[in-house]
């Protein structure tokens, strides 16, 4: 199915190949195929409509640069419009900071917390982790096992039910560390009390970054969920997990558009080392099924 799609997109592009004048019908065909490719990669449907409108208008109105044929011209616009959405690459600085992890249940926050701890540790920083998940059974075992493997101090208390109290204690206990990552329990937009909890955690920690962790397979809900997290704490970076599966990450891209942030990292496996910086070209090619 997806193979067909990408080849139909290639066909549409081929139709434009030999042309020197932009042909309206051919552009319309291409836009239609593009819409299908993006929708099947889980880009938000409304966003797809906006994007494709912009691409159509620009393709028809802009003069192709000298020496560029129509096919290259349209393809360039497609790339530009998509890159514009994901480009605002989240800066990752090697300086003292606190990172608050946020996201839906099961998205990969805890695993990614350990991966990030490892990433910054390898860059030579002194890293500490706080387990503010007081809800999920085994949450502290999970993160502390991962932290032990990489020799990163992990503060938590499975008996304590108050995430704020743990975090306050954790900040004090880990004050020697330069970089603190706060792992939180999973929550979603409709859970008002949990949204309030993460607002409070954000205030308490004075977090430098609030990163939203999104499963590459998340569908049309991504925009709505991201919107609520953004309203609550101001998301300044997205991490897309599970990109080693077959999902395309279009939901996560929609979340980036919604929060006007950038993609900080990509999760590409279950081990602590499976974390990559974001590569827009590779991401967009995959999104388009090319």
């Amino acid at each position, binding site marked *: 199915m997806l193979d067909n799609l990408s080849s139909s997109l290639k066909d549409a592009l081929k139709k434009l190949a030999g042309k020197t004048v932009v042909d309206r019908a051919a552009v319309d065909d291409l836009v239609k195929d593009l819409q299908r490719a993006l929708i*099947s990669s889980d880009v938000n449907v409304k966003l797809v409509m906006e994007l494709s409108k912009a691409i159509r208008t620009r393709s028809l109105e802009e003069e192709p640069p000298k020496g560029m044929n129509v096919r290259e011209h349209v393809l360039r616009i497609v790339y530009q419009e998509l890159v514009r959405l994901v480009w605002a690459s989240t800066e990752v600085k090697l300086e003292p900071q606190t990172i608050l992890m946020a996201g839906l249940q099961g998205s990969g926050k805890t695993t990614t917390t350990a991966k990030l701890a490892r990433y910054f540790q390898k860059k030579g920083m002194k890293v500490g982790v706080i387990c503010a998940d007081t809800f999920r059974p085994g949450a502290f075992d999970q993160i502390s096992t991962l932290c032990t493997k990489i020799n990163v101090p992990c503060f938590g208390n499975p008996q304590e039910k108050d995430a704020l109290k743990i975090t306050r204690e954790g900040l004090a206990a880990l004050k020697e560390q330069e970089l603190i990552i706060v792992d939180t329990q999973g929550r979603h937009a409709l859970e008002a009390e949990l949204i309030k909890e993460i607002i409070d955690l954000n205030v308490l920690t004075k977090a430098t970054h609030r990163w939203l962790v999104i499963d590459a397979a998340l569908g049309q809900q991504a925009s709505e969920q991201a919107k609520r997290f953004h309203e609550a704490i101001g998301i300044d970076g997205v991490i897309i997990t599970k990109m080693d*599966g077959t999902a395309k990450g279009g939901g996560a891209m929609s979340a980036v558009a919604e929060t006007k942030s950038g993609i900080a990292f990509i999760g590409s496996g279950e081990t602590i080392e499976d974390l990559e910086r974001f590569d827009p070209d590779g991401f967009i090619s995959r999104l388009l099924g090319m």
Partner: protein
Amino acid sequence: IVSEKDLDDALSELELTLLESDVALPATDAIISSVEKNLVGRHRKIGESVDHLVVHALKAALLDVLGQGFDLKAYIAKHERPVKILFTGVNGTGKTTTVAKIGSWLRKEGFTVVIGAGDTYRAGAIEQIAVHAERLGIRVIQHQEGADPSAVLFDTVEYAKAHKIDVVLADTAGRFHNKANLMSQLEKIKRVMKPDLVVYVDEAVAGNDAVTRAFEFDRTVGADAVVLTKADMDSRGGAAISIAHTIGKPLMFLGVGQAYDDIMPFEPATVVEELLEGGA
């Protein structure tokens, strides 16, 4: 008489509704074109609008895709004990929580249950299921982290036989369908514990990948029934349609929250209503 042109507007609106509800593109295409084929050339009743006709036909098509659901109680009643149920799916969809919820549900229905801690891989996985089981007062069979999951689940089945337990619930580690070694580990688990039912767990908020992974899990290790979790995340549950359309297996439960009682036997009519709420 209804013509193709009459249907066009109504159908493209419904197509968008389905897509916005996370019904995957191939499933949407197939459903919309079958509705169209069904309606073209049909006679319209006097006073009946095309919109009404189309919505009606679409509902029927969706119900047809979803089928009747899966009655676990009836299944257990008809089968030799212990009934062995293996839970599979990709990472983080809610397998472990679902095992706990179904364990709790079965106990309330009067069955005895044992849980096998078949995720020996992920950090904290054994503790997670053990805490759930302890809270519910359900016996859990576990080995060390890193142990062979087949061996754990074999022991769980032996325990159930020896203690005349009605149902074995086998948790497994999350895995992606494109990892051959992990999928063959699951095949081995299947050979060793010989489950009566393989239950595939995915989440209601999954987008188009729901199709790909359901197809691959069904193809490699099989799936007899499906549980969809996280239906409380305001999702309209299109993944139910995507999966049912792709593998044609019945849905058993919906997960609707993180508490043990947040589980509902699957009702096709409710899902279809939710799905079309936005657009129809």
